C-alpha cells in the first residue's frame, strides 16, 4: 500500500531548528546592517550637498552615543558577514595550478590580505 507520509518544514521557523541554519541566517541578516549603512552614507552626501552647517550637523550626529553605537553594530555585522563569505571562497572559486588545486587557506588568506591592504589605504587617506 502506498500512502507516503509527508513531513513539512515550518515556513517561518525552519532556521531555528539547527545551529547551522542559524549561522546561515546570521550571515544573511548581517547584510541588512551593511544595507542600512549605505543609506547613512547617502544621507551624509545629501547633507554635504546642503552646505557646511548641514554636514557639521551630520558629523555631530555620528559622534553622538547613538551614532557610535550604530557604527559599532555595523562594524561587527560587516566583519561577520565578510569573513563568513571569505571563508567559503575556496569552495566557489577553486583554482588549479598545474596538477594541483591551490590550498583553500591560500585563497582565503589572499582575501584577508587584500582586505587589510585596502583598509590600510583607507585609514591613511582618512587621517
Amino acid at each position: 500500500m502506498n500512502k507516503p507520509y509527508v513531513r513539512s518544514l515550518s515556513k517561518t521557523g525552519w532556521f531555528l531548528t539547527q545551529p547551522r541554519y542559524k549561522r546561515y541566517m546570521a550571515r544573511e541578516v548581517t547584510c541588512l546592517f551593511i544595507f542600512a549603512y549605505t543609506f547613512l552614507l547617502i544621507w551624509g552626501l545629501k547633507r554635504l550637498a546642503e552646505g557646511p552647517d548641514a554636514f557639521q550637523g551630520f558629523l555631530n550626529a555620528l559622534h553622538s552615543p547613538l551614532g557610535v553605537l550604530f557604527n559599532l553594530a555595523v562594524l561587527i555585522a560587516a566583519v561577520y558577514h565578510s569573513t563568513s563569505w571569505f571563508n567559503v571562497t575556496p569552495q566557489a572559486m577553486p583554482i588549479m595550478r598545474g596538477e594541483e588545486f591551490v590550498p583553500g587557506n591560500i585563497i582565503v588568506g589572499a582575501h584577508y590580505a587584500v582586505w587589510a591592504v585596502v583598509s590600510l589605504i583607507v585609514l591613511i587617506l582618512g587621517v
Partner: protein
Amino acid sequence: MSERQIQLEVLRYNPETDSEPRYQSYSVPCLNEWVVLDALNYVKDNLDPTLSYRWSCHMAVCGSCGMMINGEPKLACKAFIHEYTDQIRVDPLANFPIERDLVTSVEDFITKLASVKPYLIPKSDQPVSAGEFKQTPAELKKFKQYTLCINCMLCYAACPQYGLVPEFLGPAAISMAHRYNQDSRDGGRDERQEVIASDEGVWECSFVGACSEVCPKHVDPAGALQQVKVASTIDWYKEHLMPWMKK
C-alpha cells in the same frame, strides 16, 4: 568488548494502519564498536521483525542507509555508537515522504538525477577503433571528488531550500551535472545547462552549505553549486554583453 544498553527511539509509520508516525523505543545491548545500523539489525533480528529500513553494504558505499540520527543526516552504517549517549533518536531522512518506518520515497531524487543527464556525452562520435578518450591527471583531478557521490541523499535531507521548495533540483543532482561538465571528454554542458541553470536549478540555492557539512563522501556539493552559478553568470554576460564571444 564493552557493552552498553542503548535506548533506540525509532520513528515508526505503517501506511496500512497509521494516520501519522509515532516513536517506538527499543532497549538494545550495543557493543562499543557497533554502528547505529547494527543496533537496528539487532532490533530486527531479536526484538521486532516488523521494523523497516534500507541498507546493503554496511561500509558507506551503497548509499542506502541514510537516516536522521539525533536530527542529523547520517549513514547508519557510519554512525558509531560510541559517539552517542545512551539515548539515540532515529528518524527517516528529512525532506522525503515516509513510505514505511525509516524507508522514504526516493522517486523525486531519482527523477531529478536523471534529468541532468549524469553520464558522459562525448563531444563527437568516435568509433571504438579510434581508441580511448585520453585524460591527463590534472583533467581527472578537476572532477574526481564529484565522482565519489554515492547518491545517499543526506545532502537533500540537510538542505532547507529543498525542504521549503520541493521543486529544487538539489545538491547531488547539480553536483553530478557539474561533474560531467568538468570532464574534458564531455560535450553535453549545453544540454545540462537548460536544466541546472534555471530557477528550480542552481538559482534556488542560497548557499546554506549544510549539504557539504553532512556529505559522508566529502563531495562538497555546495562548492559545485557555487561554481555552476559562477559559470552560468559568465555565460549570461557573454551572451548579453559580448555576443561575439559566444562559441
